[in-house]
């Protein structure tokens, strides 16, 4: 790979200032996407700011919902996941699995074990790969992305394939979301890369709001699917999801599957996501 200058950031603020100091600098967390990109000479950051050792950026916290004096329904806890929390640590967090198994299950199937030991949530969403899993989850869960300078809603954060609302010198610190009443993820991997050819995340909030997001399939990255949201809002069932006619417009075609196939998979994965929820 091209030459680069490596920096170990001491904390998030330090990372942001190092990042701001050079227009060609990049944040390095787990590096599971960035390093291969650099090896293939597809990226040439002048500086790499390693945030992987920063304690304040790692870990999962779960804040219980305030008791309202009524019977406690499922969901509603505030979940915060640090940007450098690895997929492995998300997947194996028992407390998180108890309140949001959809997110731990999703993390358990990103990449392979070695990649999960190193890859991070922050790295996944900052890159916004059109076939990554986490963007689908955050969009469907209505998550908030907390950076060194502001809070950004997932709806605003993901701005298209490989593109986000992050400004120069802005570092993701964590994401937070309210535990859903019900959520599930259905992923169909590309046989070769095992990235999502189609991933559908369905979530119903404790207020009954339904959001459905799709990764892997869109020609401009992760997106919400209005038809599936409408169907599942009126009837949260796999049959209802299966009844939606998913069109192929705006979907990717490549050597692994054309848009029609991806459209079919969106319906099937949505159905399976509801079943899994």
């Amino acid at each position, binding site marked *: 790979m091209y030459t680069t200058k490596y920096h170990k950031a001491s904390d998030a603020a330090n990372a942001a200032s190092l990042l701001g100091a050079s227009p060609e600098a990049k944040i390095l967390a787990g590096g599971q996407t960035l390093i291969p990109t650099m090896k293939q000479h597809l990226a040439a950051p002048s500086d790499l700011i390693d945030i992987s050792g920063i304690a304040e950026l790692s870990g999962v916290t779960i804040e219980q919902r305030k008791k309202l004096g009524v019977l406690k329904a499922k969901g509603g806890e505030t979940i915060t996941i640090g940007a450098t929390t690895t997929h492995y640590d998300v997947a194996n967090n028992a407390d998180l699995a108890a309140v949001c198994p959809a997110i731990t299950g999703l993390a358990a199937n990103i990449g392979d074990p070695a990649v999960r030991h190193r890859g991070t949530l922050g790295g996944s969403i900052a890159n916004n790969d059109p076939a990554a899993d986490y963007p689908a989850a955050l969009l469907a869960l209505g998550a908030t992305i907390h950076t060194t300078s502001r809070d950004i809603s997932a709806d605003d954060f993901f701005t298209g394939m490989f593109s986000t609302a992050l400004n120069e010198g802005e570092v993701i610190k964590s994401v937070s979301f309210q535990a859903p009443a019900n959520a599930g993820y259905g992923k169909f991997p590309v046989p070769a*890369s095992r990235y999502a050819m189609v991933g559908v995340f369905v979530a119903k909030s404790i207020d009954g709001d339904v959001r459905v997001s799709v990764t892997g399939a869109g020609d401009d990255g992760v997106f919400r699917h209005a038809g599936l949201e409408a169907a599942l809002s009126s009837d949260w069932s796999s049959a209802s999801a299966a009844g939606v006619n998913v069109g192929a417009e705006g979907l990717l075609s490549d*050597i*692994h599957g054309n848009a029609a196939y991806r459209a*079919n998979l969106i319906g099937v994965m949505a159905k399976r996501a509801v079943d899994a929820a």
Partner: protein
Amino acid sequence: MTEGIGARVLRKEDKRFITGKGRYTDDIIEPNQAYAAFVRSPHAHANVKGIDASAALAMEGVVDVLNGHQLTGDGIGNIICGWGVTSKDGTPMNMGAWSALATEKVRYVGDAVAVVIADSAEIAKLAAESVVVDYETLPVVVGSVEALADGAPQIHENAPGNLIFDWEIGNKEPTDAALASAEHIVEMDIVNNRLAPNPMEPRSAIATFNESEDHYTLYTTSQNPHVARLVLSAFYNVAPEHKLRVIAPDVGGGFGSKIYIYPEEITCLWASMKTNRSVKWTSDRTEAFLTDAHGRDHVTHAKMGFDKNHKIVGLRVNTKANLGAYMSLFSSATPTYLYATLLSGQYNIENVYADVQGVYTNTVPVDAYRGAGRPEASFVMERMMETAARQLGVDPAELRLKNFVKEFPHQTPVIMAYDSGDFAANQKQAMDAADYKGFEKRRTEAAKRGKLRGIGFSNYIEACGIAPSAAVGSLGAGVGLWESAEVRVNPVGTIEILTGSHSHGQGHETTFAQIVAERFGLPTENVAIVHGDTDKVQFGMGTYGSRSGAVGMSAIVKAMDKVEAKVKKIGAHVLEASEDDIIIEDGAVKVKGTDKQMLWHEVGLAAYTAHNIPEGMEPGLKESAFYDPSNFTFPAGCYICEVEVDPETGVTKIIQFTASDDFGTIINPMIVEGQVHGGLAQGIGQAMFEGVVYDPDGQQLSASYMDYCMPRADDVPMYQVMHQSTECPGNPLGMKGCGEAGAIGSPPAVINAITDAIGNNNLNMPATPSAVWAALQEASKQAAE
């Protein structure tokens, strides 16, 4: 004998591999080593108008930048195809020139035009990116059918219409007559998908020119170091044969792709002389996709006729074989003599005719890949047979059984003379193991779960141990296909076997030691196998085509015959007995019926001290042999694949894969089973996962593991592997060969099973989920109409 023939001896070579002490080419660092990086064409077809290397030459750490004009100027010769094929009209094949570094024209993406030599691999790579090449792009053609069409871009001047050869085999008029009068005709278009071999160790080379001795050493990832040395010296003029040492140390898989001598090895040797540095090059994976010879890529039309009793009366096949941009070493033989000679399959067919067009395209050169021609033949035969059974409404097993060759030897209309086999026995063994009778019940049960279950057969036959040198010579081979061995008994009785075969995963260090152990009653730990170094080992032909058993071990047996004869003479002399009464067993030379004996090491010592050996006998105990087989060998078998398809997604899961093989004598069943497992995974890979895809501009869309789907552990099942053998009469051990069978037999079984499950016979490889889903949509659309 716990370590002899038939014993599951654990591998002697494993310890170094499991402890990380294997020594592969890239593990070696020579003093004063520089690194090569190639400047490769990004265009599939272009004229090279100029090369500006000034920026690269100015970079710190760059030793030199060399181009094709310098290479040809130094007399380095063109890369050649070593097997001449003659067209129908008697003309020789039209081979275009292939320079290790292109001079005037590039013909595929990845064609090298220059090489940078630098102090580090990274500098070399960066410098290579800075070389500016002025290309004038030309129209591109990537498919064989398109390349033969009128007006297609012309790739080599001396191959008009991109036709390399138009070859035929078999009896044309009788075949056409038989088809014309046949009761039933089955006709199909069959595509055999292009594959990338993908041994896990990428190719690598380190070349060192020693100026003071005027001598070259090349470490390289080769399946046949002697053949490499021969062509490097005799054809490419890199160095005279006696001034060139080629070493293939531990090699991480080959599957055919490491037979050939590529531009990179030639260039490294030459560059070492030019720069007076050791020059190392190691391919990365994408470079491997762009430069390692690909496999398969046939487009075939086949027509098979049956009489009213469902006996095959004739088969006519036309195949267009895409050979890529240049003719690789055995590229002409693979789609001709290794393919069409097997178009009689396991069946007694009086009339077979095939013609094959070899075609240039703007793609990576295509050559032998595990199976080499035989997987393509078995795919045609077994897809035709299964399709015929469906169209005739008969059981596919019974249709095959009815048409099997049952008497041996059997002369087919396409050269081959099958020497042995019991096809019905293999079929029965596989059907019993696969519970064929219970299938319909399982299909019904699966349907209740919403799954489509299917079953498919493949009764393959292949030809291995290629084959009498005079015969292959008459068919156009530029080399003899014998093998050599030397058996060295040391003064202390330990034994070194020097073999011309090369092990790159096959376990020769163990299997070869077992036949020595069996013969002389010695523990395998007393036997060492030496291979892979032209300075140590006598000339040999290397390992490919499942030849190391039937040919390589036969050479060892022949050398052991000579050792045994001498040992008996020494034993008779020392023990004062008649030679006829001498027997060798349990590591001792004994006089039959007495307690007189010499221990094995005492014989060795006697031979080397020469104090007391028969008068006139030369001291020492070392014999060599060259073994030239009398015929091909014919491994065969029956494979049955059972699948379940998820109709919602098109995902196919292999529920059970059963393989009954006839490999003749088996030395180490553990190793043989391992060879079958690996072959099956590659065949299943071809059928369901793998495929090189080009866009119309000649860019490979599948040049990394992100897009080329290698079978993973969760893609394949546990395999049921079993044997039902007949002894091969053609060689002393009765062996047939096992290295390629799995890859040859499995693809049709898989596709027959999937097409059975989905009820649509129109399905190409690889049968990916999206392809299967599309075939299901097509089937339901047809059903609705």
